């Protein structure tokens, strides 16, 4: 058997082991086309990955670098104001040094504001150095304060960077840190890194500049414009709910009819977190919402009035005949006929009382306030535009509602039943689309007040399929609230 196995294997191997078959004529062209298509596909994948990577890097840079730059306007000016207050009595001479890749730099006298920028560069050298464009670096240090030349020791020689990076550093410094660090620097910069001939400083000129800056700073701060940032919103207000339920419904049981009021007024409220990116925002959070309606169920109960009635008897009426004599027929001698006397009888066999059954309907009215309450989690995307302190916004999204409570009555199995959490015709959750728009006004750097309209409508029915007859609810709400700028 083994030999046989080997033989058949060998038979085929010998026959087909070196099988060579020339391909069809167009085969090579197809391969070339396939190779080119595969290369193009690889390139597409490659570019796709490059694009994806670039986008990822951009997003990462954005979140790591610019995200904290959440406000412009007033907040930044306030910080600057504080810094000015600390150092306003001093004048500074700054020496700028550039490397061989850059043009020659010259020492210069700088204004208070510029001086602050220079200081800030020096405050955070560890943050700035490793990211800088090293082809063109700038070393900036204060070499004199109030006409006194500073020493060599304390100023960081590695505090280098491009202007662009400095701006970013500036944005990364929050107000408190800046004030504190500046205060320290005022103390530490009693010495300078190198001896430098201090250019003459015109103190009058400097004082003039300072007073100009100070007056500019002391003027009312412009409203903060949220370019990127996080807010938390608290809002509440009335909501007007409408449904498409028919006004009058006669149920399967003809004795029950419902009269519906298709609208109701309720309240809604929410806490949402709003994340803004440039003009766009995304909101999500938790809200309370309510759908429902007022229905009057008219239930007729069949009633019988048997108070009236009559008695009836079963009678047997019949005649009996008694023979009272005989009559001889003269025409037929010997024939005798009896003479009969009839008696009428009425016998009572039985009697009964026949009651009267008068049918009438007892009508009971139930005024029900059906309420279906939800915890709602929205996701809203929108756009906002600033007009000074005023911010106008509009957006839309979806919200998923989780039923927390339901009250009222519903018609089931030919009877009205009370709605309870465990016994109700409603789905435990539903999906709504929502549109909101409104305006917010900046009260301060941290607080806004807003007023807006919310509109929402069911995407999925709130009613279980077995009870659903295409009923949809819509709610229009008017909200007032406050928003707090987290950052």
């Amino acid at each position: 058997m083994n030999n046989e196995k080997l033989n058949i294997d060998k038979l085929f191997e010998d026959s087909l082991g070196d099988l060579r078959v020339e391909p069809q004529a167009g085969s090579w062209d197809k391969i070339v086309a396939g190779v080119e298509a595969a290369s193009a596909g690889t390139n597409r994948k490659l570019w796709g990955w490059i694009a994806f990577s670039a986008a990822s890097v951009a997003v990462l840079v954005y979140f790591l670098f610019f995200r904290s730059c959440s406000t412009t306007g007033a907040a930044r000016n306030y910080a600057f104001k504080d810094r000015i207050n600390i150092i306003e009595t001093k004048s500074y001479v700054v020496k700028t040094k550039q490397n061989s890749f850059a043009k020659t730099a010259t020492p210069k006298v700088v204004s208070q504001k510029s001086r602050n920028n220079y200081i800030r560069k020096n405050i955070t050298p560890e943050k700035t150095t490793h990211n800088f464009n090293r082809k063109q670096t700038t070393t900036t240090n204060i070499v004199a304060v109030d006409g006194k030349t500073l020493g060599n020791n304390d100023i960081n020689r590695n505090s280098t960077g491009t202007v662009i990076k400095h701006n970013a550093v500036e944005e990364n410094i929050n107000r408190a840190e800046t004030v504190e660090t500046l205060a320290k620097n005022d103390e530490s910069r009693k010495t300078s890194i190198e001896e430098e001939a201090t250019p003459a400083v015109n103190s009058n000129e400097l004082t003039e500049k300072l007073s100009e800056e100070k007056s500019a700073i002391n003027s009312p701060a412009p409203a903060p414009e949220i370019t990127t940032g996080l807010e938390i919103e608290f809002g509440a207000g009335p909501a007007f709910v409408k449904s498409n339920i028919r006004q009058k419904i006669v149920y399967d049981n003809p004795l029950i009819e419902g009269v519906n009021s298709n609208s109701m007024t309720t309240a809604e409220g929410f806490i949402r977190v709003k994340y803004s990116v440039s003009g766009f925002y995304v909101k999500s959070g938790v809200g309370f919402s309510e759908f429902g309606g007022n229905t009057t169920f008219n239930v007729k109960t069949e009633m019988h009035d048997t108070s009236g009635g009559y008695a009836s008897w079963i009678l047997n009426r019949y005649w009996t005949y008694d023979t009272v004599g005989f009559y001889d027929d003269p025409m037929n001698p010997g024939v005798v006929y009896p003479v009969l006397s009839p008696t009428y009888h009425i016998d009572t066999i039985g009697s009964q009382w026949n009651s009267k059954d008068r049918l009438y309907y007892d009508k009971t009215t139930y005024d029900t306030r059906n309420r279906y309450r939800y915890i709602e989690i929205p996701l809203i995307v929108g756009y906002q535009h600033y007009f000074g302190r005023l911010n106008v916004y509009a957006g839309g999204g979806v919200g998923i509602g989780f039923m927390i409570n339901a009250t009222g009555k519903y018609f089931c199995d030919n009877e009205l039943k009370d709605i309870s959490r465990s016994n109700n015709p409603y789905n435990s959750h539903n999906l709504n689309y929502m549109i909101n728009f409104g305006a917010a006004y900046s009260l301060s750097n941290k607080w806004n007040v807003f007023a807006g309209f919310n509109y929402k409508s069911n995407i999925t029915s709130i009613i279980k399929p077995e009870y659903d007859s295409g009923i949809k609810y819509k709610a229009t709400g008017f909200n007032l609230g406050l928003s707090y700028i987290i950052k």
Partner: protein
Amino acid sequence: MTFDDKLIELCKKGDRAAQEKLYKVYSPVMLGICLRYAKNRQEAEDVMQEGFIKVFTSISGFRGEGSFEGWIKRIMVNTSLNHYYKAKKTISDKNFDDIRETDIRNEDDELPQMRFSQIEMLEAIQQLPDGYKQVFNMYVFEKYKHREIADLLGISVNTSKSQLSKARNHLKNTLFKMEREKKQTD
């Protein structure tokens, strides 16, 4: 540097003429391999083309370990198997066990006496159920061990062995049948 080495180097650089040369050298052998795994000529051509596309797009990965022909053959065999499983979607012992035993008639323990042409032998293989065909080809022509076949096809070693045995019987019966038909026509 051998002729193959030069050709491979040029192919790695994407030289179309070198690729065509390589194709002309190896395509007859590779089509022969594909024919053994395919149901028909057209399917074998498709598989071979797909295999050569893989060869040219992944030739930069060939490090010169082992023979180049062996490398291409493996690609062709794998492409043939993938081509089958793309249609079948899943690989399991069940695919192999689905073949009905009643299809196999063990008529005779001896081999047919008549000689058969390459085309007839190829037809006999192509008539094999897919599971038998794959195991038989891999074992007899590609010299894979049962363990390797089992790993490549995702089946057990015992399944591989039983499939080979059944394939042999099937082929033997096919050859006997062909022999009888030939005798009748003569």
